[in-house]
């Protein structure tokens, strides 16, 4: 087990290096000069442009720039953006919001999605099963930004102005604390939630037909114990895989949701940075996201053994 973890971590190093290189190269290839982007549509004074280009070594060849970046990275220096902010500071500011948001979304997915899936599976073909299937189909087919804006208008604005219930903040608000994450968390989770529900349903239906489940029923175990201990535990493997993968997506893919609810997180920062060609921020954030992804994968792989003791790590 310990050796397995160490091996996985060592394997991750070339992946991270490759990812930074790819992202760095891609951003380098993006058309548009970062210094020009700094001034919007205005033409800058050529002397000012030169000073900035020199300061950030933008006229060096690509490999020298990348090498400089990489050596900085090994010293723990993520560099500076073109406006003089430390990338580490930018990331330290943005990540907590996104982590809170992603965890809220993940919790909603797990609780609501798995519950809906289990209920649907156990009442297969009944009314409740159809409700779950149809509602998840609807959620999957509606674009996220529509769900976001509609919920924001109904629960954020109308509930407040028409009924005086100020529970869901329209946009992120530090004072509202955890409540700020509920609505965006749900919106962010909505699509995955539908998948989790469907996945749980299919997986559980299959497992419930397995011999060992029939044995458990024949032994006279209580239905709850049969479902939770014997059914769900085995049915969870594909769901855990999905959720693990999804965590990476939730962290980096929250651009739209973060935009709608004005959460100053990673997606929001990444979007702005791409627009402004802030190379160091893009590479920094994406590398961090790659690490999150790799870590989530590792955790998922380790969880398999917990769920199914037959699985061993060599």
């Amino acid at each position, binding site marked *: 087990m310990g050796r397995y973890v160490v091996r996985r971590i060592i394997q991750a190093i070339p992946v991270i290096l490759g990812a930074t290189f790819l992202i760095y190269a891609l951003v380098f290839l993006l058309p*548009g000069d970062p210094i020009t982007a700094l001034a919007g549509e205005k033409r800058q004074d050529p002397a000012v442009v030169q000073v900035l280009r020199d300061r950030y070594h933008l006229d060096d060849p690509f490999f020298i720039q990348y090498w400089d970046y990489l050596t900085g990275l090994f010293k723990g220096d993520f560099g500076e953006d073109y406006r003089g902010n430390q990338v580490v500071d930018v990331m330290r500011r943005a990540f907590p919001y996104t982590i809170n948001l992603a965890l809220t979304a993940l919790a909603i997915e797990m609780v609501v999605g798995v519950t809906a899936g289990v209920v649907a599976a156990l009442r297969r073909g009944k009314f409740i099963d159809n409700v779950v299937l149809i509602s998840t189909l609807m959620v999957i087919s509606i674009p996220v930004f529509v769900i976001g804006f509609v919920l924001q*208008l109904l629960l954020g604005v109308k509930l407040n102005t028409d009924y005086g219930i100020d529970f869901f903040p329209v946009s992120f608000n530090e004072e509202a604390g955890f409540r700020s994450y509920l609505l965006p968390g749900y919106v962010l989770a909505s699509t995955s939630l539908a998948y989790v529900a469907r996945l749980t349903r299919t997986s559980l239906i299959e497992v419930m037909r397995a011999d060992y489940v029939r044995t458990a029923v024949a032994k006279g175990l209580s239905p709850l114990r049969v479902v939770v201990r014997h059914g769900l535990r085995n049915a969870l493997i594909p769901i855990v895989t999905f959720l693990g993968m999804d965590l990476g997506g939730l962290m980096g893919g929250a651009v739209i949701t973060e*935009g709608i609810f004005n959460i100053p997180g990673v997606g929001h920062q990444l979007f702005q940075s791409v627009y402004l060609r802030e190379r160091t921020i893009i590479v920094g954030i994406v590398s961090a996201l790659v690490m999150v992804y790799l870590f989530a994968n590792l955790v998922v792989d380790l969880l398999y053994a917990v769920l199914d003791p037959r699985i061993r790590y060599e």
Partner: protein
Amino acid sequence: MRLTKTMRWTALAACTALAISACSTGSDKKSSDGANGSGKKGGSISIESGEPQHGLVPQNTAESEGAQVLAQLFAGLVEYDRKTNEPGLRVAESIESPDSKVWTIKLKDGYTFHNGEKVTAQSFVDAWNWGANQDNAAEGLPFFSKIEGAEELAPGKDKKPATDKLKGLKVVDDKTFTVTLAAPFSQFKIMLGYTAFYPLPKAFFQDRKAFEEAPVGNGPFQMDGKWQHNQQIVIKRYENFPESDGKAKLDSVTFKIYDKLETAYNDLRANNIQITNKLPISAMATVAQEFGDRYIYKPESGVGFIGFPIATNPAAYGKPEIRKAISMAIDRESITKQIFSGTRIPADDFISPIIPGYRKGAMGDAAKYDPAKAKQLFDTAGGVPNNTVELGYNADGGHKEWIEAVGNQLKKNLGVEVTFKPFEKFGKILDELGAKQYSGAFRMAWQMDYPSMENYLRPIFSKVAIENGSNYGGYVNEQFESVLSQADQAKSQEEGLKLYQQADDILIKDLPYIPVYTYMTSAAYTKTVKNVVVDAQNRIDLANVELA
């Protein structure tokens, strides 16, 4: 920094933002109401903002979000009347010059920075020297180029400044300094209200990083804590502000930073924020009904153009008749109504309607939609090579729709082929124009830096602006140059104004660019506040806002 606020500034080329000090002249009806109104003193509000692009240093801020915050934190030498945009004195006691070349500036007593330091002549001189030095890479650098010695501090690419002091700035005593310009410039006083001309305290030079996060100004508000990036900037009343009628009425104001205007608008409707001066297009249909007289709708300083590469493609766009024909074939009314939902209005002058010197209908025929006449003029002038007009635009700023509408109108009215060329950024159009890779017409817009006609003429159409400004088409007209320089040397602003209007007339005859629309400010506020005035630079005069 604002990515999606297409309604105003991403749409503007050369969108140097503007600075206006929070005005206190009280000439506006609304604000005089406030003086004897029953408004409660104190209280706190939140208003919409975008993330400022740079650290908050006046000399390095040329974008609207940062300038709006700085305008509350600083008081400049000059402020602009909210209604007429005429310059008035603020920190300056007097600004005088016998020859428009050597200016003597005297300061009023009593202004202090928020850390207690006195505002002296040196505070201004130090700030300007810093901004003019190319090593500091300040965005406001071009504003100091008129001062004598500017080229020593900004010698250009690959050269080092020889000194760090402008030769033209001399401190006479604590309250007086003189500014010598390289050449006479009658509008110099008007420039002084711009953000780049605010003073800086010693604290800035000791710790620039700290200053950028929490600037120390001399205005009616001071920072309350540090700028919380992507979240908010909180400012509070500065009790020692010396203007009796300019003191902030509110205790504090929070600039809440938004990424999407739709979200800000929803927050406004839920009264989570109280004022926004940028509305999303989606709100335009219903905002008047929803907010009634708390909805403000008036022209602002931006003008949108179709530009022509006169220098690089004279065969197609060299003749003024062709340009006039194109201008007359554009249905401005339908473009502004149907594509911009009234967030723009048809332009009829090179100058925005809010600028002293603007003349309604100045363009005459050239701005009138007359397809028949346009076609006739176009054919008589010989048309364009291959009978094809190319229209370029930057695809990141919401310009596709209106450029395509213009193209279709030209197709229909002039019988030409129209091709469209999207560029990923506006800068790319400029690069390709410069390298002669692109020789088609292009979209362009201009927003003023200071409310003077001169600011709509020289930076876009003069010969010097080809190298060092925004004359992207390469238009040159000696007569225009000479009238412009006469206007600069005028002994008074009024005399200057007349001459600038003459220069404007030359442009109207030549049409190097075609003015298409003027931008509109649209702002709204909730029932909980009053005395909300949005000025010509689309800034809210927060010092006078009160709780209702």
